[in-house]
């Protein structure tokens, strides 16, 4: 039974794309077939994580939404030999004209859903990861509405707290079956258990993980997949646990 998981953060800079890419690879290493969809059409970025050259993108999500191609033509295989499973990436268009067009006309939820369903069945995808645009615009709400699981990423800072509280409530209203918080870039000296307790109490939502502020991760930034380069790192193990928990 396949799962659609949206990964969202209220503000930019939380490490959302980074987490999405690492989670995808982690799931593939567990032997699953994973597809990452970059629905952040306004500011696409996850292709950088997979080191996919924009020139090599023949069809993007934009092309599918405008009926130029079938959804499976937009999927780019990103697997490496180390993983038992597969990783596909459906990128958004990097062309400014394409971006402007989506912003102007938007797209239909019915079409997006069809695309998701088709890619799941054609490539026999186990987990569909949706990298969303920060904030709560209509396209993002759409992705959340189509998801089985919503993973909200936040940093320990006041603005993220406020935005996350709003997101949690909106997602609850849209009746997402499952929702988790992931606190990212948390300084080492925070007490983990207490942070989890406080966050769960404040947001009335389970915290799936607390990821530390890691220099190695910052160094790699959005230039390569951390869990591939540091297979034995504590953060890698933590992401592996997130992958397992999120599958339920």
């Amino acid at each position, binding site marked *: *039974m396949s799962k659609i998981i949206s990964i969202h953060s209220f503000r930019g800079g939380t490490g959302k794309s980074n987490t999405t890419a690492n989670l995808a690879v982690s799931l593939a290493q567990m032997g699953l077939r994973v597809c990452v969809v970059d629905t952040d059409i306004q500011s696409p970025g996850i292709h950088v994580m997979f080191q996919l050259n924009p020139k090599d993108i023949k069809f993007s999500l934009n092309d599918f939404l405008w009926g130029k191609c079938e959804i499976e033509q937009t999927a780019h295989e990103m697997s490496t030999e180390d993983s038992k499973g597969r990783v596909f990436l459906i990128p958004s268009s990097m062309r400014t004209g394409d971006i402007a067009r989506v912003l102007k006309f938007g797209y239909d*939820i*019915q079409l997006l*859903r069809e695309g998701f369903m088709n890619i799941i069945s054609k490539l026999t995808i186990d987990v569909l990861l949706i990298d969303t645009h920060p904030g*709560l615009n*209509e396209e993002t*709400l*759409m992705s959340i*509405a*189509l998801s089985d699981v919503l993973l909200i990423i936040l940093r*320990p800072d*006041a603005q993220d*707290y*406020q935005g996350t*509280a*709003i997101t949690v*409530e*909106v997602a609850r*209203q*849209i*009746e997402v*079956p499952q929702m988790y918080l992931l606190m990212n870039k948390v*300084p080492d*000296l*925070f*007490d983990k258990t*207490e*942070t989890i307790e*406080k*966050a769960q109490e*404040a947001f009335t939502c389970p915290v799936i993980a607390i990821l530390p502020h890691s220099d190695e991760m910052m160094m790699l930034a959005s230039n390569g997949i951390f869990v591939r380069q540091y297979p034995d790192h504590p953060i890698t193990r933590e992401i592996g646990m997130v992958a397992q928990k999120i599958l339920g």
Partner: protein
Amino acid sequence: MSLSKIRLPKGMRALVLIISAALVYGFLNAYSNRLLLPSAPFIALRPQVVLPFFLGFVFGPWVGFLTGFLGNMIGDALCGYGCWTFWNWHIANGIYGLLPGFACYFGLKEIRTLRRFVIMETIVVATNLVAIGVVVLADLFWLKTMQFPESLNSWILPALITNIVLSFVLVPLLLVFVKFIVITVETRITLVLSWLIVSIVVISATAVTWTVWNDLTSQAASVQAFYSAGIVTVLVVIIGFLISVFLAHRITDPLANLGQAARQIEQGEYQLPVLDTLDKRSDEFGQLATVMRSMASQIEARETRLKNQVAELKIEIDRTKQDEDVREIVESDYFKALRQKARGFRTTSRIDKEEEIKDATPKDDESSSI
């Protein structure tokens, strides 16, 4: 240094102090003359010599000088030598009190460190040398009662040696008694070690002198024996003192460093470069320094953690604003329509999935039975 600064106990008290101290000194000088040294018939073993030193250190140069000067005069008079016969010795005894009395003008008011202890003992030895120097010079130029160089061996050196050893050992003792020397780890170690060394040397030197005494035939030989023993005594006392100072430093330096480290921790500095060499020592100080360093880093970690916890403890959410923002989104027509569609999708996908499961069930059974 101006003379006006020289301290003198006020009025009658000072006078009473000087007169009574001089009387005590004089009587002791007159009636302790029985303790004659075997080799030097004119020089008595005079422990009271420490009195002017002591009063000089504690009450300043005038009290010290007058006590020594008048005391010696009284002693001579009581012995029948006459008041002015050996006036050079009056001056010498005055100097015993005068020079230590000036010590306070060099910052020596209270002795609690090794440095000051060493300064004090240096003043004691130097004062002895100056005083004897004055005696000898005065005799050479005016009195002419001595024969040189015979008297050098017969009593000048013996007098010098016995006075140095006595004052070196007894002055600190008196100063401890009136708390002029404050007992700290530094002074205690130095005192104990120097006392130990001095007493061993003095006892053995005396024993040697007395043992060979009966075998000595000529007076020259007996003088020679005392002379050697005395020189050895002074040398060993001084070397022993320096060794004890060195040993005390080995203990007190780390203590000072540890104290400084503790003060730095108190002020919230946790790097402690002051312990850099200390924590490499393998002894108890090294262990303490290591523990102190790890304690400091633990405190620092805990402090940072506490600071962060204070920040972390307040996940503050403006609930009114949250409600407003949420309402704005969920009450829009778009959102209502989206929710409706999403509900529809979920029901149909549930049905789809149920159908999938039904379809897949026979296959699953087959595969699992293999």
